[in-house]
């Protein structure tokens, strides 16, 4: 097996007396979709916040391409090639697709800040990058507010990749979307995976979506890894049981009956 792009070793995070992550190990490989599953409070959010530089771990190590890294801010994580696409996507609905794509990293001629924008090149790049992962925007000057939820997700992903993300962290990208748009996002994920050079960490509640696109799975419960494996390893296991915190679905049915 190739060397993992990111190796997480014994990651611990405590908030005061509360232990959010309790010694988590995860390997993430290039060109793969790694699904991170777990119930609310399992520690998924804490884990991605550490990976994207929002929180610092209490103990444990993060290695990127074999080298240990310490992120003090989200900027450090971005510079190291970790692109996080949050649920709110960090988009401006009234601004155009191109202006959103290049926000804060505009191409311009002349002095910084007051230099003239090179809209033509930016429009072309935006269109091309969006097309590569499957959406052909007819008019990149249209407002982001006119895009569907799935298209916005694609825009945020294309932006992260264009600005150098080697690892794409997608936080619940299919929640709050309709069926058709969920498919759009899954297609986008598959296209990014096909590039081969980007690793995707997919955080989700939805085991059906994870089964559809993921190569590797990690299940978290109460801050610990309770199961892991590749797609073939898990073929016969009931992912749903692991999602529920390791308890068979039958137990849950009994619990409900007793309620």
């Amino acid at each position, binding site marked *: 097996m190739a060397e993992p792009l990111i190796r997480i070793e014994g990651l611990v995070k405590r908030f005061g007396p509360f232990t959010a992550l309790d010694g988590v190990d995860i390997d993430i490989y290039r060109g793969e979709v790694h699904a991170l599953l777990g119930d609310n409070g399992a520690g998924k959010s804490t884990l991605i916040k550490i990976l994207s530089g929002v929180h610092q771990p209490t103990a444990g190590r993060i290695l990127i391409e074999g080298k240990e890294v310490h992120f003090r801010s*989200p*900027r450090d994580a971005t510079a190291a090639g970790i692109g996080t696409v949050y649920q*709110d*996507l*960090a*988009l*401006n*609905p*009234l*601004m155009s697709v191109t*202006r959103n794509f*290049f*926000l*804060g*990293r*505009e191409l*311009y001629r002349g002095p*910084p*800040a*007051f*230099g*003239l*924008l090179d809209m033509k090149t930016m429009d072309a790049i935006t269109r091309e990058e969006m097309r590569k992962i499957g*959406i*052909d*925007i*007819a*008019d990149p000057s*249209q*407002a982001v*507010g*006119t*895009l*569907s939820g*799935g*298209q916005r997700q694609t825009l945020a992903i294309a932006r992260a990749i264009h600005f150098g993300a080697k690892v794409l962290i997608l936080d619940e990208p299919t929640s709050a979307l309709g069926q058709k748009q969920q498919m759009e996002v899954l297609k986008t994920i598959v296209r990014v995976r096909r590039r081969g050079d980007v690793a995707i960490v997919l955080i989700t509640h939805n085991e059906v979506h994870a089964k559809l696109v993921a190569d590797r799975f990690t299940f978290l419960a109460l801050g610990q890894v309770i199961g892991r494996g590749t797609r073939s390893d898990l073929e016969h296991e009931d992912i749903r049981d692991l999602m529920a915190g390791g308890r068979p679905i039958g137990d849950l049915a009994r619990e409900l009956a007793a309620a």
Partner: protein
Amino acid sequence: MAAQPSLSVPRREADRLAAGGRLATLARRPEVGAFVVMVVVVVAIAVASNGQAFNALGLKNNLSIIAQFGIIAIGATLLMIAREYDLSIGSMIGFAGMSMAMMLKWGLPFGLGPATPASAFFLTLAMTLALGWLIGTIVVRSGLSSFIVTLSFLFFLRGLTEVCFREINGSTQISGLPDFKETSTFAYIFGGETFGWFYDLWFLLGGNVNRAGNQWVTGFDARVAWWIVVALLAWLVLSRTQVGNWIYATGDNREAARANGVPVDKVRIGLFMVSALCATIFAACQVFETNTADAAKGNLKELEAIAIAVVGGTLMTGGYGSILGVVFGAVTFGLVANAVFFIPAIDGSYYRVFVGVVLLAAVFLNERVRKRITGGL
């Protein structure tokens, strides 16, 4: 849906807006409402005044008021696009006018000797920019609404202006300053005339003649040129530069802008300083043109500036607006404010009646435009 797209090309989400031609695209622009209102007002006033509002002198007087409104409305618009308000504009005008006139009459502070128009202007500008910076910094650091912070500066600066006038000058107005625009090029740039060639040409073509048969009006007030310069710069920055992108983003989704590395706080502080700059230009034009100052100058101008910004298509909620629309809005407001001089039969207070009605209509229209721009999704 009446028209079905051809079956060979599957209909996509992104194409939902593409339907409709050039006219539909034009109707989606934020300045459409302001343009229509302006045309209606121009025609109505031209007819009601028997064309007097647009003869040589009428045009000069109207554009003088329009330019005044236009200059401060642009400062207010840029701020509003970044989702901030400046209620201190009017008091800042009074303060700047007082400061300049007082220096010209009593000399520079700290015994620095007599003031020239340039030294009075730049010293005043340094103070107003510092005040703009202070307002911006308080807003950014405290996280308070700019509405309340600038409201306090509205009272503070107006009071300070009156106190300074009484303490130093003995009365709340200064009149009869030397006519600096005759002796100083610097004063002429603010208080003199501009676009003289326009009226020369008009005279050559047979118009612009007074009763004695000579050329009647010689040029527009200098503030018209300032208005054009300020509007062009604002348009250029807003639509064509990196800072323009940041101003929109600051008003649209501030946290998203921050997450993408936009210096949101610097943008906001800078815009409060631009607003103070606009108020200072307004005051300088007034002082150097009339050679007077008054503690009441600029009263209520902040609210008119905000009203013009809204009528020009700027969204109260930020993130969207157009300089061109605000230019149309300033023309509308200026003409209506001045209408009483050309149509003596009407009561001047109808101006405020008009403002109230147009403002309310504009807010509703803007909301519709916003929905249309975002496809109503």
